[in-house]
């Protein structure tokens, strides 16, 4: 029983650790897991195992009360208000649970204490479920559930009280505790719990989860569980110093599918996702966005551009599906030029800047998901040119809102009533985008001028100048990329000027800022664009991932239509109007890092988010159960389709990019695959005969047991009784002969007795009675075993029980005598 108690203590200590870790992975409460782990480990070692110390109950209650007062005071101070405050209040609750649980753990364990510790663990899991929706929750929940089940079962076995003697009036009763093989029970029943009960509970929970009807189309994330995304903001500061640390936390998951075939669209070059444009440069390295244009609040997404001219189209129609983690702004990340696809009315579009925005009423504190189509790609490359999409002064503005449906036809080449499409910047926009204080950037202006001066005069068109300046910063100018900004700031000097004059190293924002200023110094309108640049493709999930370390800044220069080089063909966009020319002056390799990503873990996070955290009313029909009925979207049909494609590829020699082709003479991948398949086949072949032999052995053992009379339960009991005093049947002996010979060997006489009343001391059983009992048992055994009697009648049953009781008394007497003689011998 002591061993069971130790195992039980270990279970509950581990439960405490896991519950603490569950909460520790949530927001605000990262320090609490330390308290939980410390309390669990120390209490297990010193209270439960070594039993050196324990907290007396009054002291424990006092400690719990103090913790409650402290944490509730913190709770009240947080007040109630927005979600962040509610989150802080919940943190106070979490702190209360952990501290009170710690006080419980330091007490000597009783059944009640174990139950209370378990209940606190459960409450901690509930709090963690509110605060923490990361996949770590799901990963930790599995061992925690198994431990909890095992602990609950063990708690049923554990009985700390010895045999209880009850007395009322003349009756005294001593009840039996668990038998001596409680260790075997303690070993077996948790296995039962984990192997049978655990899966059963899990299946029930899954069915419950996926069949419970959701009422809302938004899966809630009530409290800011994860820190919002950094690396992207509406403004940009060049004043940071020190070493910047890269964060590999995922921000966006982008799924690209060809619109016609539905296949995953793979890129050959990094993809740029626009988050914000920064037009206005203020002193001391600050870039800000500047709203201009007729529709400041945005409009619906434009409809798809459909070319009217008959020629070969140099663009691919791609569906974009973006899943964004919680961020600090309403920006939606766009691959421009984009257009609306079916069923996604939530996004707002800023025509002048090709930016997407999630309206406030649709923004959630949790994960956002949006869809659109784009013509930006052609053969895996994203176009550098983006048609200017502006509205002229003739556009009719509506007082009640910007969402004029006509604006959705901006991409149309046909005239739309009330819409005055602009083809170039107006004067205000141009002045903002060419604004530069040349006194602040003398060296930068001079360097730009010198670079341009080196160009042949006939090649000095804006696009060529922009490209030349980009190349200058990127390759030939002696600039280098670094995240270590540990250099001194020169007083009075603009950070961009310092970057050009002195440091000549920095990250993407410095390069982009310098290029924008150089372009402006050459009277070319330019702006910064911040967003993400990524080419990290998850092979398992079939999606691209943008992490915080993929945050990037680049430049867009405005080129008039007539200044467009003849070699450039802009397709998939309207034919008229100015263009934004994307320039990325940051030296290569800076943003291509994939950040040591584990694709499997990333895919697990995707599945966790899709099928658990974000399950809502709109997603539920595409859940597990509709998988059977919805043949278009369910995973099974997709798997079947993939298999079909794989077979086709195998036949055509394209499986695995040709590596697993049947047409190749040798492929190491094929060789490894074949090797493992052969190994598994051989292992199975080896195991099957072993299984058969084992089965045969088991059958033989069963047959032997039947022949030995093991099918007669009272005979089995009799054999066990006699075996306890070393009396066993020899194989040649028949049961009757054996029992006849056993009877004289059981010495019932008590030498201490002086009654002179014979040898009757075994609770009324003398030698003759014992012999009769053996004879009775033998006769009834033969009757039951060979007499064709399925069950004994009541009288025979009674005789069996009486005889067994008599033999049991004799055996106990024999054991007592043996012990006494052993003690006497040792004395």
């Amino acid at each position, binding site marked *: 029983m002591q061993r069971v108690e130790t195992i039980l203590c270990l279970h509950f200590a581990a439960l405490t650790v896991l519950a603490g870790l569950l909460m520790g992975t949530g927001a605000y409460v990262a320090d609490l897991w330390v308290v939980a782990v410390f309390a669990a480990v120390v209490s297990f070692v010193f209270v439960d195992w070594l039993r050196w110390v324990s907290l007396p109950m009054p002291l424990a209650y006092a400690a719990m009360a103090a913790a409650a007062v402290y944490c509730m005071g913190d709770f009240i101070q947080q007040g109630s208000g927005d979600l962040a405050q509610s989150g802080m209040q919940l943190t106070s609750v979490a702190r209360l649970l952990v501290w009170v649980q710690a006080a419980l753990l330091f007490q000597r364990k009783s059944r009640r204490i174990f*139950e209370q510790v378990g*209940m606190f663990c*459960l*409450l901690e899991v*509930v709090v963690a*479920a*509110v605060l923490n*929706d990361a996949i770590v929750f799901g990963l930790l*929940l599995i061992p925690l*559930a198994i431990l909890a089940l095992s602990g*609950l*079962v063990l708690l*049923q*076995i554990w009985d700390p009280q010895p045999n209880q003697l*009850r007395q*009322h*009036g*003349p*009756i*005294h*009763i*001593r*009840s*039996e*505790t668990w*038998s001596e093989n409680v260790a075997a*029970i303690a070993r077996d*029943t948790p296995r*039962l*719990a984990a192997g049978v009960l655990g899966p*059963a*509970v899990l299946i*029930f*929970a899954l*069915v*419950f*989860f996926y069949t*419970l009807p*959701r009422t*809302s189309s938004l*899966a*809630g*994330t*009530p409290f800011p569980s994860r820190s919002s995304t950094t690396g992207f903001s509406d403004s940009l500061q060049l004043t940071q110093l020190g070493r910047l640390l890269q964060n590999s936390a995922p921000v966006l998951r982008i799924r690209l599918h060809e619109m016609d075939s539905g296949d995953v669209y793979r890129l050959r070059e990094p993809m740029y996702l626009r988050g914000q444009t920064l037009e206005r440069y203020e002193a001391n390295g600050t870039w800000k966005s500047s709203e201009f244009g007729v529709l400041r609040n945005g409009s619906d997404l434009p409809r798809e551009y459909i070319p009217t001219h008959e020629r070969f189209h140099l663009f691919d129609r791609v569906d974009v599906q973006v899943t964004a983690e919680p961020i600090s702004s309403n920006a939606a990340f766009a691959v421009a030029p984009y257009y609306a696809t079916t069923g996604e009315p939530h996004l707002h579009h800023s025509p002048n800047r090709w930016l997407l925005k999630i309206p406030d009423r649709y923004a959630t504190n949790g994960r956002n998901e949006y869809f659109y189509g784009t013509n930006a790609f052609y053969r895996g490359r994203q176009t550098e040119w983006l048609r200017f999409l502006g509205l002229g002064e003739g556009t009719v503005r509506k007082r009640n809102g910007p969402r004029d449906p006509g604006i959705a036809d901006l991409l149309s080449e046909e005239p739309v009533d009330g819409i005055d499409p602009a083809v170039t910047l107006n004067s205000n926009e141009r002045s903002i985008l060419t604004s530069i204080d040349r006194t602040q950037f003398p060296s930068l202006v001079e360097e730009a001028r010198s670079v341009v001066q080196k160009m042949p005069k006939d090649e000095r068109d804006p696009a060529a100048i922009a490209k030349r300046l980009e190349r200058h910063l990127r390759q030939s100018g002696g600039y280098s990329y670094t995240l270590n900004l540990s250099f001194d700031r020169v007083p009075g000097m603009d950070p961009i000027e310092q970057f050009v004059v002195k440091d000549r190293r920095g990250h993407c924002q410095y390069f982009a800022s310098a290029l924008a200023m150089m372009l402006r110094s050459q009277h070319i309108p330019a702006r910064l664009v911040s967003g993400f640049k990524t080419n990290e493709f998850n092979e398992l999930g079939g999606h691209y991932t943008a992490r915080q370390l993929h945050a990037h800044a680049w430049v867009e220069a405005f080129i008039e239509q007539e200044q467009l080089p003849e070699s450039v063909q802009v397709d998939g966009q309207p034919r008229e109007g100015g263009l934004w020319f994307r320039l990325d002056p940051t030296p290569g390799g800076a943003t291509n890092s994939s950040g040591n990503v584990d694709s499997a873990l990333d895919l697990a996070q995707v599945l966790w988010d899709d099928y658990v*955290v*974000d*399950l*809502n009313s709109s997603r539920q029909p595409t859940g597990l159960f509709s998988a059977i009925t919805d043949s278009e979207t369910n995973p099974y049909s997709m798997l079947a389709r993939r298999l079909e494609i794989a077979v086709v590829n195998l036949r055509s020699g394209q499986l695995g990019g040709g590596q697993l082709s049947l047409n190749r003479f040798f492929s190491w991948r094929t060789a490894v695959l074949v090797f493992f398949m052969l190994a598994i086949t051989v292992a199975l072949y080896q195991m099957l005969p072993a299984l058969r032999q084992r089965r045969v052995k088991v059958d033989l053992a069963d047959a032997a047991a039947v022949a030995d009379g093991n099918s007669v*339960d009272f005979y089995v009991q009799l054999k066990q009784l006699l075996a306890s005093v070393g009396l066993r049947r020899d194989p040649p002996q028949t049961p009757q002969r054996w029992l006849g010979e056993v009877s004289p060997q059981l010495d019932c006489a008590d030498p201490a007795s*002086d*009654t*002179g*009343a014979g040898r*009757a001391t075994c609770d*009324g059983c003398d030698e003759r009675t014992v012999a009769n009992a053996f004879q009775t048992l033998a006769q009834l055994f033969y009757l039951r075993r060979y007499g064709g009697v399925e069950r004994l009648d009541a009288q025979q*049953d*009674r005789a069996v*029980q*009486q005889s067994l*009781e008599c033999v049991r008394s004799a055996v106990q007497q024999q054991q007592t005598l043996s012990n006494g003689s052993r003690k006497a011998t040792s004395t």
Partner: protein
Amino acid sequence: MSSKRSGRVRVLLTRNGLHFLSIAVFCVLGSVIRELNLLVILAGLLFGLLVLQWRFCRRTLDRLEVGRTLPREIFANRSFKVVLTVHNSRRLMPAWLLRITDVVGPVQRTSRRVRGQVLLHHVPPGQTRSGSYEAMVDRRGEYRCNGLEVRTDFPFGLATGRVRIESPENFLVYPAIGTLRQGWRRIIEARYAGLSSNRRRAGQTEGDFFGLRPWQNGDSRRWIHWRTTARLGELAVRQFEHQRRDEVILIVDLYEPPTPKSFGWTQPNGGNRTYQRDVERALQIGATIAEMLTRSASTRIAFGLTSSEPTVVASKLVAEIRKESLDALALARSTDVSGDQLLTMMRQLSDGPRRHWPPVVISTRQLPPDECRDFVAKKSVVWIDVTNPDIRSFIQLDDMPERVPSEPAHAAS
């Protein structure tokens, strides 16, 4: 052994189960209000636990046959075991962690009942397992094991399944028995002196044939087994076992004076404590002697009890006499037994074939009543006065101090 199949199963939530249910409901409400999917999962897990617990409770207790086996004889102040047996008549599903509770109490509820519990951890399908609890009863009388109750909390302890099995069973607790000393034999032997046969040999003159042994000096030549002697080449003689049997008329006289107040009795229910102790002592001595004498099947005994319900047991098998006499002693109540009644009983028992059997009377009276004195003298009746402290010379009872007098004492005949 009585065995009955389990009836309707009732499942009730335990304290822990109520806590789980409350948290599960909280999770459902939280998930509904704030659309928190992780709370839905937690609620699913908790409801899953509760549903599984409920199903296990019901299924575990279904189709169980529970029985009780009491010892054949139960004496006061002697512990005994009550065996509870469970047969799992299901084909597939074992039963785990069964708690079988039995309630024991007097038939007439003069005191509270006590629960005995047996714990069985595993009963495989189609098999039987048993366990026992130990009990001891201080006072003789009739008691009852009331209905059995089987409970299980398996697997998680969130709910308790109960099933009651109505199988009441009455049993008698015989008076506490003591230990007879060697003095008891001397009383009987002294009584037998001069009589023809008080402890008779049974069987042939030499006794029953028992076996062969080597010849020793003093052995009769008639005992030599010639065939074996010829085979072994040395003398071998036959061994005989002499069986002797007791013949006794045992009478327990539970006399209660008719006017309690004249003897200082003030209690309404029949006697003061001293007198009740004497009655119980007489019963204990009678039970001790009866129990000892009836151990051997060769004993010939006649039994009489003068009480509120006079009992005579004679001319029966020893086992029947043993049972009926002990049953009578278990339920006996003292009364105002007249001398004539006692005399009638003594004559009845000493009549016919038992006329040579020595009568032994265990009485709460110090001397035989006047009506019986002639008979006592004539028949050399052994009169045992239970109030006489010298009875310790031949018997040791639990409530007696341990002291053995130098001379055996018995009542005069």
